[in-house]
């Protein structure tokens, strides 16, 4: 079955790509995209922590109820919450981006110096 180190490495690589993007990109919406990538990477990392080799989904059904083969449900609960938090922050950041664009007519963060800067 799948080696979980593989998922850990993908998660970390994705996280680092996102971090690199945040630090270098100047476009407002591009930064939001890179932050979302980072959040997905962290979610992938969290779920891989709960992954048990050849386990089954932690749900009792009429056919499956062998408790010891269950995958760890707690990281999944955490990821459930963190995905929705990610959605919340992304929605807020995007509305900020819209208001910034309406005010400064540009999405490039460097060129946003309005008159009330001084």
């Amino acid at each position, binding site marked *: 079955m799948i080696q979980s180190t593989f998922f850990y490495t993908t998660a970390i690589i994705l996280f680092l790509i996102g971090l*690199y993007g945040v630090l270098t990109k100047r476009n407002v919406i591009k930064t939001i995209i890179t932050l979302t990538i980072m959040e997905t990477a962290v979610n992938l990392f969290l779920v891989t922590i709960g992954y048990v080799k050849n386990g089954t989904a932690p749900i009792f059904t009429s056919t499956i109820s062998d408790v010891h083969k269950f995958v760890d449900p707690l990281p999944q609960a955490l990821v459930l919450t963190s*995905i929705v938090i990610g959605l919340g922050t992304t929605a807020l950041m995007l509305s900020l981006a819209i208001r910034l664009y309406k005010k400064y007519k540009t999405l490039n963060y460097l060129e946003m110096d309005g008159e009330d800067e001084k």
Partner: protein
Amino acid sequence: MIVLIYLSAIVMIISALYAVYAKDLLVSVVALGINSLIVSVLFFLMHAPDVAITEAAIGAGLSTAIFVFAIKHTERKE
């Protein structure tokens, strides 16, 4: 089966790089959608159906919609 998973992981990383480097914002939003779609597939393969559905509905579905709305109200080129 294993090859499929390794392949999807590679696609995920490529779509993430694409999302970061694409000049056109819509293209990078689509790449982001692909990325979260593949992640929800991986969640499913890791026996986390709950998270898979949520990631699909929120990550692929709604986030992309919100991004498109935002681009509609601002501009497309970087």
